[in-house]
C-alpha cells in the first residue's frame, strides 16, 4: 500500500506527497498537461522543442542544471503526445533546491534567441539520430498518419518534419509558455525520505505565490470511426522486411483498457505468447514479433509488429497473423492462459512501484487521468478482467476495416 497526501494550492497547482524512509533520496516530478496533440498541424514538434527550452534558465536563475548538480541532483524530461514530464532526484536533505528551481521556471521562463537557436539545432540532430538516420527509424512517421486522419495523434512527438522545428519562432515560444505552463495546468509529486508537513510548507512557500493561469480548453478533433482498411507499402534499404498492423482501440479511461492490454500480452508479449509460438516457432514466418498498445489518453492503437524471414510473402504473413488474432474472437481462452498474462503484469507492477522516482511519476500520471488511487488499485483492475471480456474486446477491435497495415519492405529481399 502506497500512502500519499494530496492537496491543491489556491492557484490551482495540485500536489501529491509520498513518504518513503527506505531511501536517502527524494524525487520531484512535474507534469504539465500539454503534449504534441495540443500543437497546430503546421507547427508540430513544438511541445517537445519547448521541453528543451525549459532548461535554458528562468527569471531568477540563469542556469537550471548547474545548481541542481551542485546539490547532488540529476534530472531529465520527456514529452509524448499527451503530456510533458520533468523529473529529478537529489539527496533528501537538499529538497528545497528542487522547490526553488522548479517554482522559478513555473513562475517565469527566461526566453532567449540564443537558447532557441541552439535547441532548434539540437532537436534537429535528435530527429536525424532517432528517426532519419536509423534503419526502421521512420516507421512511426509513416504509421501514425496512416492510422489517424483527423486526430492530432496523426503526427509524432518529434514533429512531422525537421522544417517545423527550424521554423519555430521566439513568439511561438512565449505564447506556448503562457498558455500551458502555469499552476492550474500542472501536477507535482514529491516522493522520498521527507517529512510530509515540511514538504507541504515548502510547496506553499515556493509555489503558492505563482499567479494562476486559466486552464486552456482542449477541444481536439476526434478521429471518426474508420470504415476502410488502410494500407501502405514502402521500400527501404534495410536488412529485413517488416510488417506493422495497427487497429484503433479505446482511450486510457475506457472500461476495456485493461482487457485490451491483456490481449496484447496474450498475443505478443514474451516467447510463450501465441504469435511467437505460432509464427516464429512453428510456421517460421517471422524472426521476431511483438504486440502492444500505445496507451494514449485519447483513443489509441493496438499494434502488432514483426520482422519477416527472407522470401516470406508479406500478404501471406499478414493473413496468418490475422488468423491468430481471429481465434481470440471466436474461441474463449483458457483461464490458465489469462492467469499467466495477469501474473506477469502483477510482477511488473510490483517492480514499477519500488524507486521513489517511478512512484512520483506514476502518482502524477494517475492524477492526470483522474484516478490517483490507481497507484494502489492498478493490480485489481487487471485481476478483474474476465475471459469473456477478452473475447468481447477482441471482437470490437479486430476487424479489417478498423486496421491499418504498413509493409516496410527490404530492397534486398521479397
Amino acid at each position, binding site marked *: 500500500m502506497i500512502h500519499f497526501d494530496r492537496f491543491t494550492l489556491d492557484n490551482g497547482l495540485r500536489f501529491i506527497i509520498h513518504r518513503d524512509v527506505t531511501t536517502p533520496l527524494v524525487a520531484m516530478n512535474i507534469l504539465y498537461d500539454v503534449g504534441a496533440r495540443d500543437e497546430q498541424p503546421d507547427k508540430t514538434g513544438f511541445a517537445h522543442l519547448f521541453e528543451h527550452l525549459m532548461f535554458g534558465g528562468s527569471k531568477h536563475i540563469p542556469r537550471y542544471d548547474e545548481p541542481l548538480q551542485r546539490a547532488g541532483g*540529476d534530472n531529465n524530461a520527456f514529452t509524448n503526445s499527451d503530456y510533458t514530464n520533468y523529473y529529478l532526484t537529489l*539527496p533528501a536533505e*537538499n529538497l528545497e*533546491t528542487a522547490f526553488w528551481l522548479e517554482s522559478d521556471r513555473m513562475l517565469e521562463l527566461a526566453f532567449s534567441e540564443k537558447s532557441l537557436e541552439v535547441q532548434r539545432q539540437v532537436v534537429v*540532430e535528435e530527429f536525424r539520430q532517432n528517426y532519419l538516420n536509423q534503419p526502421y527509424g521512420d516507421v512511426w512517421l509513416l504509421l501514425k498518419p496512416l492510422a489517424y486522419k483527423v486526430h492530432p495523434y496523426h503526427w509524432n512527438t518529434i514533429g512531422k518534419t525537421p522544417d517545423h522545428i527550424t521554423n519555430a519562432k521566439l513568439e511561438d515560444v512565449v505564447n506556448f509558455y503562457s498558455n500551458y505552463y502555469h499552476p492550474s495546468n500542472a501536477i507535482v509529486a514529491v516522493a522520498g525520505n521527507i517529512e510530509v508537513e515540511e514538504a507541504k510548507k515548502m510547496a506553499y512557500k515556493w509555489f503558492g*505565490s505563482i499567479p494562476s493561469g486559466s486552464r486552456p480548453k482542449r477541444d481536439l478533433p476526434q478521429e471518426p470511426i474508420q470504415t476502410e482498411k488502410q494500407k501502405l507499402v514502402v521500400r527501404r534499404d534495410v536488412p529485413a522486411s517488416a510488417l506493422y498492423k495497427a487497429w484503433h482501440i479505446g482511450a486510457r479511461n475506457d472500461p476495456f483498457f485493461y482487457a485490451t492490454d491483456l490481449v496484447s500480452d496474450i498475443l505478443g508479449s514474451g516467447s510463450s505468447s501465441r504469435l511467437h509460438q505460432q509464427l516464429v516457432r512453428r510456421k517460421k514466418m517471422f524472426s521476431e514479433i511483438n504486440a502492444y498498445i500505445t496507451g494514449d489518453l485519447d483513443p489509441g492503437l493496438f499494434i502488432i509488429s514483426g520482422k519477416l524471414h527472407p522470401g516470406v510473402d508479406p500478404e501471406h504473413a499478414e493473413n496468418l497473423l490475422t488468423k491468430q488474432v481471429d481465434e481470440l474472437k471466436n474461441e474463449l481462452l483458457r483461464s490458465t492462459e489469462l492467469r499467466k498474462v495477469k501474473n506477469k503484469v502483477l*510482477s511488473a507492477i510490483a517492480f514499477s512501484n519500488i524507486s521513489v522516482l517511478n512512484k512520483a511519476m506514476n502518482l502524477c500520471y494517475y492524477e492526470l487521468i483522474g484516478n490517483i488511487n490507481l497507484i494502489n488499485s492498478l493490480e485489481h483492475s487487471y485481476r478483474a478482467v474476465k475471459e469473456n471480456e477478452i473475447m468481447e474486446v477482441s471482437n470490437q477491435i479486430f476487424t479489417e476495416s478498423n486496421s491499418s497495415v504498413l509493409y516496410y519492405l527490404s530492397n534486398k529481399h521479397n
Partner: protein
Amino acid sequence: MLDRIEAPDIRRLNQLKINRPGYCVLSNGIPVYQFTNDSYKAMRLDLIFNAGSAFQKKMLEAGTTNIMLKESNLKWSSQRLSAKLDYHGSYIDLSIDKDNAWLTLFCLRKNFNYLLPLIRSMVTTPRFSPSDFLLVNSKQKNIFAINDQKPRHIARKLFNKKIFGENTPYGQIAELTDFDQLSVDDLKQFHHQHYHFGNCRMIVSGPVNDKHLARLEDTFGDEWGYHDNIKSFDQHTDFTPGIFRSKLINSLQSAIFMGKPLVNREHPDFPKLLVLNTVFGGYFGSRLMSNIREDKGYTYGIYSQIAAFRKAAIMQIITEVGAEVTKATLDEIYKEINRLRHEVISTEELSLVKNYLYGQFLRSLDGPYALAERLKTIIDLDEGMDYYERSYRGIQDVEAEELLEMARTYLDPEAMLTVVVGRDE
C-alpha cells in the same frame, strides 16, 4: 518577500553509508551475497559465470551460449519452459559482457522457491537442439544486420578492434559472416567448460530470508556441471592510435568514437580519473555537453565514459553529430582536452562535480536491486562493496592540481584513437 535569487543552502550528509551484503557459501563453494529489504514484494537473483566473450575460442560463442539457456533443456521443451516462467510472472534477463555472463531472475517473492529448479535446469542441462539454434541464431543475425547499418555500431566495432587489438580477447569483434560459422557443438563445448558450480557466483536481493537461502543450497549446492577451471585469460592490449574513417555516403550524421586505454580500477589514479572524466564528459553539465551541445548545437548528445573490465580499462568519447559539423566537432573535442591539460579546474567546478558524484553514488546504491547491480559490476575484484567506499573517498579527496596532472599523463591528444563513420565533409 521570498528570495528567489539566492539558492537554498546546500547540505551535505558527508558520510555515505554503503550497505554491505550478507554472505554465505553453499556447500560446493558458491558464494551467495544477499541484499535484504523485507518491505519488498519482489526478488532478484543473479547467477554470474566466468563466461564472457573474452573466454570464447570462436566469435559469438559466449553470447549465443548464454542466450540459449532459455531454450529447451533435458527437463523442459523451450515452449513448456517459457510457459512456466511466464505463468509464474517471472522475467529472465540473459546477457554477457567481456568478462562475465549472467542470468538474472526477477519474480514475486511467493514464486521464488518454485522457480529455482527451473533456473537450475536452464543453467545445467541446456539441450542446444539444432532447431532452437537455427531460430536463435537467425534472429541474432537479423538484429546484428540491422545494427550494422547504424553509424554508431559500425564505429564502435572499429574502435574496439583498434583500442584492444583485433587478436586479443577484448578486441575480438564479430561480423555478419561469423553467424554462419557457429555450430551447436561450439556452444555445447563452451557451456561444458564455463557453466558449472566452480565458476558461479550468486547475488540474491529483495525480501530474502533463511528459507530462500536453504532452497538455494538444496537446488544449487551440489557439484553440478563439468569442473574445468578456466577462470582466466591473457589480455595483452595492442593499441593502435590514429584516425580511422569509414564512409557512409547517405548518412545525415557522423558517429565519432575517440579514446585510449587507461589504468585499471585497482590503480590509485583510477578514482581521480573518474572525476576527470565527469568534468570532461560524464554528466549533463560536463564540458563536452556544455560546449558541443548546449553552446554549438552540433549534436543531441556527447559523452565521455570510462569502461573498466577485469584486465583493462579505457576512456571513450562517443557522439553522433551533423555530417557538416564533423570536423568542427573534432576540433572542439581537442580544444576541451587541451583545456584540461593546461588550465587548473576552478574550485567551484570541482566542488560541483564532487557534489554531483555524491548524488550519483546515492542513486546508484539506492535499494537492494541497485546494490546487486553495483556488486555485479565489480564482482571480479574480490573487494566487495569496500571498493565503492574506497572509490568514493578517492573521489572526494582529489584536488584540482591532481586533475591537471591526470589530464597531462593520460589524455595526450596525439596518443588518441579516433574513429569517424559517416559523411565527413
